[in-house]
Structure formats: C-alpha cells, structure tokens
C-alpha cells in the first residue's frame, strides 16, 4: 500500500512515497517557483519514476507545508508542525524535540513518543527566517551557500553581531566587511547570530532529549555545532533532513488509511 506526502514549502516542493507506512520508496524535490502546481507535478512524477510506480498505485496523498491548501493530488492535509513531529519520531524514535529551519520559517516543537505535539513555537517578526538570511549573507560575502558553513568553522575570532533584527544584522555585516574582518570571522558571526535567534525560540518552548534538527539549514555543519554549544546538549541531524516534513505527511496518510 503506497501513500504519498507532499510538502509545499515556501521555496521547495518535496515529495515522499511510502510503502505500508514504514518503507520509504522515493524522495524528490523541485523548486516551487511561480508555477507551484507544475513544480509539484514534476516532483511527484520524479518520485514515481524513482520508485517504479504509477499514479494509480498511490492510495492516499496528504499535503503539508505553507502551500498545503493548494496541493494537487492531496486528499487532506496536516500542519507542518504535526508533520515534522510525526516524521522525526519515525526516523529517530527517541526524538522529543524537533528544530526545523527552512528557507522562510523556523519552528521548534516538543513531542511525545508517538509523535504527538505537546507545544510548539514559530519564529516571530523579530527573528526573520534563517534559510533566506543565510543566502543573502553568503551573497554579501561572495561565497556559495554551501561554503558558508565550512568557512565559518575556520574562524578563530568571535565578533558579536546583532542577534535580534535581520536588517540590523545585514548592515552590521557590511560594516564588518569594510572593517576588513576576515570572511571566516564574519561567516562565524552570521552563524552565531542565526543560532542565537533559533536558540531563543527553542528556549521559549523548552527542550528535552533527543533534540533533532531538520529542514534545509540542518545540512550546515557549522550551524549544528553552534546549536550544540548554545543548548549544551547533543543535537542530531536526521538523514535527508529536508524531507522529514513530507515523510511525516506520508505517514499521516497511512494513518488515515488505517495502517498501524
């Protein structure tokens, strides 16, 4: 029995195909762009191709993500918070805290062993999204996004940067560049600032081990290290972190089909 989860993220559309509510058969993603419907179809077809399946094989599709109300193929939806919890606990059963940092939104949640959400927080006005901020910082430093993390890990100096307002932080980076600080140190300052904002959010909800990180920014090793330092606890990055939401939705679809 095949179910599917579609994560209509702010930037990327992710699709996961799941067999019998326990085996992942395929993962695919596509940049959302302006034609999200077209992008979703592409991602879905790519996933079907990967798994060697046809559309008719899919019994139930559940959507999640910012655009979940407009997801093609989906019969129902689950919120990103619910999907993140469900997916994270499936991948790593000891999960009790999930930190999900995507392109536009960061969220944190605490859950129980069944993946039921106990409390959650989403980044608010004064803690502008981490993913897109990382991208604009990478541009300001004239490096590729993937290089930002490794660059920061070479730093030997801590420069305090405003952890509150993304706009203030951006102009601070401009100042730091003009003051001839090294790219490594500035990259580290950027990571510290974002990690501070995310940590503030995590502290609001509180955290319990195991703490896991999902979403695109989880692939940045420097960010992970900084979070470990801030929280003084082990932070696990789940495999295929940006697909955990879609996986959670696929699991909810299986739940809704009565699969135990």
């Amino acid at each position: 029995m095949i179910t599917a989860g579609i994560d209509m993220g702010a930037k990327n559309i992710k699709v996961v195909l799941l067999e019998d509510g326990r085996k992942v058969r395929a993962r695919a993603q596509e940049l959302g762009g302006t034609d999200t419907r077209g992008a979703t179809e592409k991602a879905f077809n790519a996933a079907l191709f990967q798994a060697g399946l046809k559309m008719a094989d899919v019994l139930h599709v559940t959507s999640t993500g910012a655009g979940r109300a407009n997801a093609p193929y989906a019969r129902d939806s689950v919120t990103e918070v619910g999907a993140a919890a469900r997916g994270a606990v499936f991948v790593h059963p000891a999960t009790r805290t999930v930190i999900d940092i995507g392109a536009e939104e960061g969220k944190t949640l605490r859950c129980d062993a069944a993946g039921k959400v106990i409390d959650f927080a989403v980044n608010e006005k004064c803690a502008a999204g981490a993913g897109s901020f990382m991208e604009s910082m990478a541009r300001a430093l004239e490096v590729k996004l993937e290089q930002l993390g490794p660059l920061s890990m070479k730093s030997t100096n801590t420069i305090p940067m405003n952890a509150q307002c993304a706009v203030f932080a951006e102009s601070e980076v401009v100042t730091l560049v003009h003051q001839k600080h090294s790219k490594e140190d500035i990259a580290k300052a950027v990571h510290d600032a974002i990690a501070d904002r995310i940590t503030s959010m995590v502290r609001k909800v509180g955290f319990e081990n195991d703490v896991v990180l999902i979403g695109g920014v989880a692939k940045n090793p420097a960010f992970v290290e900084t979070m470990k330092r801030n929280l003084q606890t082990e932070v696990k990055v789940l495999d295929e972190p940006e697909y955990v939401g879609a996986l959670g939705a696929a699991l909810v679809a299986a739940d809704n089909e009565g699969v135990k």
Partner: protein
Amino acid sequence: MKEIDVFREWKKKRHEYAKDWQKRTGGKVMGYFCTYVPEEILYAAGVLPVRVLGSHEPQNVTEPHIFAMFCPFCRDCLAQGLKGRYNYLDGLMIAQSCLHIRQAYTSWVKHVPVPFSYYLCMPHKVQSKRAYPFLRGELDTFKKAVEKWTGKGISDKALADAIAVYNENRRLMRELYDLRKAPEPPISGEEVMEISLAQQMVDKKEHNEALKKLLAALPKRKRDRPAGTRLMIIGSEDDDIDFLHMVESLNKEQYPATFVVDEHCTGSRYFWNDVPDDRDLLMAIARRYIERPPCPTKDWEERKRIPHIMTLARDFGVQGAIVMQQKFCDPHELDTVAIRKELEKKGIKTLFLEFDVTVPIGQFRIRVEAFLETLKQDDLF
C-alpha cells in the same frame, strides 16, 4: 589620564567592585532599575545601591520571559540576571517609571532568587501637588521595609548624612559639567559617560573622592584634538560608549566633534538636582525626586523636559543634537517629535538614531559625518 581611568575600571569591573564592597564593609548590595529609586534611604541604611545595566551582548535567554517587541535594554538587563552575573545581590528593586523595564524586574524576581525585593510606586503625576504627600507616604513604607530587611533602624542623622553625600556628588558632577561649557572642554563626552555610569555603580563617597581628584587635574588638561562641533545627546536609556567614542574620534581635521552635554536616562537626568533643605527629611527626598528633570513617562500634562533641554543647549553652546533613541522605547518616542521641533526652531539641527544592544557602527559613522558636514555648512553662512 589616570584620574579618568579609575572611573573606567569601576564601570568595567562593576561586579567585582560590588562583591569587594560587600566584603570590605559587610554591607548589603541592592540592585535597582530606574533612577527614581530613592538611593539616599538605602545609603543611610548602609546599603550600596547599584544600577542594573545591560552588557551589550547578543543573548538568547530572555525570549521565554519578555516578548521581543519590548526594548532591547530591558531584555539585556534581564539577561544579566538570568546569566547569574548579579548573583551577589542581596536585594533588587524598582521605582516605577516605564513599563518595559518592569518586566526585567518581575521576571527576575520570579526566576532568579533574590533575598529581598521591592516595587516602589513612584508617582507619575509629578506635576500635581498631590504627589508630594503620596510619595512621602510611599517612602515611609519603603524605609520601614528596608529597616526590616537590614535589621536596624535608619536614624535621622544617617539620613541627613546620606543626603549630604549624595548632594555633594551631584554638586561635583555639575562642576564637572561646567568645565564642558568652555570653548575647548578638557574632557570628552565619552569620558564623562564613563564617569556618570560609574557613578551609578559605586559608593558615592568613593566617587566623590575620585571626582575631587579629577576636578583638580582637569583644568590643566589639554585634549589632543579640537572640540570642533559642539554636540548634545538627547536620550532615552543609552550607555553606548562605543558610539560616543566613534563620534569623538572621527578625523580631527574633517569632522572634529565633542559631546558637551546630555539629557538622557543614564546621564544628567540621574544626578541633576539636589535634595532641598527641609526639616522633614523624607519630604525633602520626595521633593527631590518629584522635581528632578523628568523621565518622559512623567513629563505630562505640560512638557517640562523641553525648557530644561533648551536651557542646557543654550548654556553649553550646543550646535547640534543627536537623539539616541532606544529601539521600541515608547515614552521617548512620544517626546522626540516635540523636542526636535523646538530645537530646530532655535537653529539646532538634530540627527535621529535608533539604538539596539549592538549597532551598525559603520552606518552610523556615515550618518554622523554627513550630519557634521551640514552643521559646518551652516557655520559658513
């Protein structure tokens, strides 16, 4: 200059100073928020009042306690408490003025254990004659609470002595400020801020001694740069030494500038007026706090801040004013439009800058230089 360095050290090592003071004297240390706290009563009880200020470091601990729309200063203050930097305090208190800082107090006393805490209802309507008996009554209640806490009574003599020490401190600070009226002030705004911040953290007797030494040495001192454009700080709460340093170390040929006076929370508003003579000592203290240059929260229905600012601007020969606005500080935001209007009417241009815990000093430099340029151009005509 070593007479100034002593103040710098005090401010830099404020926690060490307080802990050392506790050991030396065996007395209690009371942390406080807001300059309306009647320090004279504490001092008379043998207590050292120390103002809680932030550390200008980004932090991630206050989010669960104070919602981010409240000013960075109150969150920075609470962070100090949550991080345990003030663990040596014997007491913590607040005299009611603005809303935001109250949260630093109320969250602190709930989550960080403090042996003694007090919320003083300092009246807001200082322009009403009814405020006098009211505050005197509140001070009486406060005095009794302090006596209970320290385990000994506060005699009239102790109160009179404390008033004398505090009044001398204020007089010496005004003397220091008077030196800044000179065409070439012997001291910079940054240095004075160090001194007035230290003033809020140490035993006033010691501060007086250091001030006397400084006042003896200053008249001979020549700064290594011209005073240049004479600037004034108009503020909410701000203790951004780095910013003052930046302004006063700009290229001395192109943009010489000196802060010659200020009217803000952590500056002259703190110490400007004395406790007047009155046989009723508590009433004398009440009068002093009611009649002092008002915090924006207490400046209504009439605006008394403005004539005070205009007098300072005139007496100190101010050419331009920088409004150092603490981000999200509503009370000050409610004053700036009227203040700037009045200053501009009298030909004093103003520059408005918004401050957070850390600031984009590079961007600020550009704006200050441009501001100074426009002031120079005015001079030419």
